[in-house]
């Protein structure tokens, strides 16, 4: 058992989404377990990541051959498979000792996607119904499995995820030849509409929507009800597409290459021609018609499970591998944005590529996994979800990568000096948020405090504003803190001198993992 666990935990560790957050659930009589909204870390690994869940693969006997994966069928590694009871037992006994917050069950593809999905579903069902486990469960939806099996698992899980793996169709074709966009996006869509429906049934009005949804809603000045109504209309029109009958039901779509042409985001005019051949993995409007057809129109088992904990109540997430394929940061955050917009994901995770296989199709990155780049993407992701930035504001096809030396928000502000200075006593919340040195906390405090009296720089400091960053971008009652040049190169240099505090997972003992020179030189001379 010890060896089995080691193998299947080792095999699952590259999945980075190990959070137990997103749902609050009290203990229940006759059951063991509860769930805590903001998640709980139980320990931290030697690389400093939070361990919250028993994260394991059900099996690493995989028939697929994804080039980046340690478990690919062409690798000679020890293979093993749990039984459902083994997984249940481990979960319960670890949980009782307070080692973990719950279970994260992923899997390689044993025999077939359906066979594997069924095993996952059986395990979850057992854990909930026979072992009476009421704690947190995250499971994978296996690409290519029947919607029915995915739905069944979703009634027992708290969160589900389907990994996007690589942001472009080309990347996927090259590195994960057995996976297709259709097989990845269809379950994502299915889970999304299932969550919608279950929320309606349980009378939850937006309480469990992602941060991105709420931020856009607030920016548009809409109430939860208004925004949901709008969504419902859009959802209806999606359904109409389903019924037009012009869609191909052969299920071959992923392989015929038709989609690449139709669905190239270039055609929507949004992304332009970044890389001639790599079409962004997400569908444009035209493409949507092509694959959305097999998305089910709702939950088929709702009567059976009504009154339970709901369908995937903690929402869904996905993950992309960063640096295995040549996409730019701009492509990555555009995909992220589309995922939040169209699929209402709770989180998109980024995983710096680690070269576990010696394969000529994989890049060699000197200096190890691109951790700084991963960090910049998380920062940008945050800006999309909480600050109301659009991907196209942060990067463009002309400037497609983040600056190594400056965080994405500073980088944006320097490129948009015409929008500054901002008058602190007048600007609305989201405008304040765009000022370097002002975050959600201090912006909120400013909005509250200035109702009493007009604020000066000393007040701002007390409210938590980082003045040495903000001073170039704000006025208090029309005055700047002191006269300063408003000029891109000058301010850039000043900000660079402030030395951004990078998180410790990037700077180990003052060493930066990456060769900074790998990235573009910041655009100042």
């Amino acid at each position, binding site marked *: 058992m010890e060896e089995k666990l080691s193998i299947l935990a080792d095999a699952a560790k590259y999945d980075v989404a190990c959070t137990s957050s997103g749902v609050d659930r009290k203990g229940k009589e006759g059951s063991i*377990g509860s769930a805590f909204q903001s998640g709980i870390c139980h320990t931290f690994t030697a690389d400093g990541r939070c361990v919250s869940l028993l994260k394991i693969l059900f099996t690493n006997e995989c028939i697929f051959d994804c080039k980046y994966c340690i478990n690919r069928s062409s690798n000679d590694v020890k293979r093993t498979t749990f039984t459902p009871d083994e997984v249940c037992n481990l979960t319960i006994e670890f949980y009782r000792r307070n080692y973990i917050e719950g279970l994260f069950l992923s899997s390689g593809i044993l025999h077939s996607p359906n066979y594997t999905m069924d095993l996952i579903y059986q395990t979850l069902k057992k854990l909930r119904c026979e072992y009476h486990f009421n704690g947190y469960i995250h499971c994978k939806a296996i690409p290519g499995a029947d919607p029915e099996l995915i739905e069944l698992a979703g009634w027992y899980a708290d969160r589900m995820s389907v990994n996007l793996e690589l942001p472009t169709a080309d990347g996927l074709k090259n590195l994960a030849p057995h996976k297709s966009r259709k097989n990845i996006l269809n379950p994502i869509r299915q889970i999304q509409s299932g969550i919608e429906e279950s929320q309606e049934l349980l009378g939850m009005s937006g309480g469990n929507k992602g941060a991105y949804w709420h931020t856009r809603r607030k920016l548009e000045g809409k109430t939860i009800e208004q925004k949901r109504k709008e969504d419902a209309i859009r959802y209806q029109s999606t359904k109409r597409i389903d019924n037009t009958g012009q869609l191909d039901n052969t299920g071959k779509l992923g392989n015929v290459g038709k989609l690449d042409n139709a669905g190239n985001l270039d055609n929507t005019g949004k992304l332009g021609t970044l890389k001639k051949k790599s079409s962004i993995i997400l569908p444009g409007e035209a493409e949507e018609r092509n694959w959305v057809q097999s998305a089910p129109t709702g939950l088929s088992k709702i009567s059976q499970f009504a009154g339970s904990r709901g369908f995937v109540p903690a929402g869904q997430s996905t993950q992309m591998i960063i640096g295995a394929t040549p996409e730019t940061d701009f492509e990555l955050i555009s995909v992220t944005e589309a995922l939040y917009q169209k699929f209402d994901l709770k989180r998109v995770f980024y995983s710096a590529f680690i070269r576990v296989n010696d394969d000529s199709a994989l890049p060699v990155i000197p200096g190890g996994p691109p951790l700084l780049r991963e960090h910049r993407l998380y920062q940008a992701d945050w800006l999309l979800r909480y600050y109301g930035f659009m991907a196209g504001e942060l990067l463009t096809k002309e400037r497609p990568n983040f600056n190594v030396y400056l965080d994405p928000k500073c980088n944006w502000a320097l490129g948009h000096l015409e929008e500054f200075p901002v008058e602190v006593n007048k600007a609305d919340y989201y405008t304040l948020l765009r000022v370097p040195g002002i975050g959600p906390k201090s912006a909120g405090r400013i909005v509250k405090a200035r109702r009493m009296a007009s604020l000066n720089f000393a007040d701002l400091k007390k409210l938590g504003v980082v003045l040495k960053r903000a001073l170039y971008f704000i006025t208090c009652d029309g005055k700047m803190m002191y006269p300063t040049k408003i000029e891109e190169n000058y301010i850039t240099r000043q900000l660079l001198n402030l030395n951004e505090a990078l998180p410790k997972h990037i700077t180990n003992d003052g060493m930066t993992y990456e060769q900074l020179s790998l990235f573009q030189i910041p655009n100042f001379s």
Partner: protein
Amino acid sequence: MKPVKIVQCVDSVEGIFTAVYDAWAMKYGHEFIKLEVIGMDESLNYELFSEYVLVEPDSLKAEKVAKSIRSKISEQAYELVVKAALSSDVRKADAIYHFLVRGFLMGKKVVDNLSDPYVQQIFEMNRFVGNETHFFKGFLRFVELKNGILLGKMEPKSNIVELLTPHFADRFAAENFMIVDMKRGVASIHQRNQEWFMTALEEEQMEALAAYDTEETEYSVLWKAFFKSVAIKERENYNLQRNQVRLRYRKHMTEFQE
């Protein structure tokens, strides 16, 4: 200048509240009064020109103070001072006293008075106690005794067993468990589907509990194996890990035991 009166009390909510009661009753002038928990800070010098008064805990007096805080200040203020009283901060008794002096004057608005140093201290202590309680929701480890009872030992800085137990009582309603503060000798006892309660432990009991330390069991071995497997070699960073799980917490954490 009047000499400062130093009112000393024992380290408990009851002890501190009693001292608050007695100090107040002295009518000596609040600015000349200082409260101190005995034995908390060895480094405190005996102040030659101060007058020391030792206060024995008295549940009736403490009860009265609690009631006045709730009715004359607010429920929130009450929670704040109780949590502060559980902290390991040597300034706590004094901060609580002067916070309450202001509270009885200003009423519930005292908590908005963030520029006041005593109010700040109270919040600071609350943050620390709150954070530590949250850490232990994750870091506490249970071992299963032969009779199926789960034993969770810990040595937190703050006195948080009581704050922590509701979380586990909800989660483990059907389990028999106890959570023990090995430093303070206090424990909470939860019996299957019953209300939990706090208790003080005798020395022999503590010794018996200490003996359970390093016993390997089937699941602790598996857990260690799991813990070892999930680390990613290419990202190894012990500095970061040390920041996240402070060494002082590791003693009772299975995965850090040899």
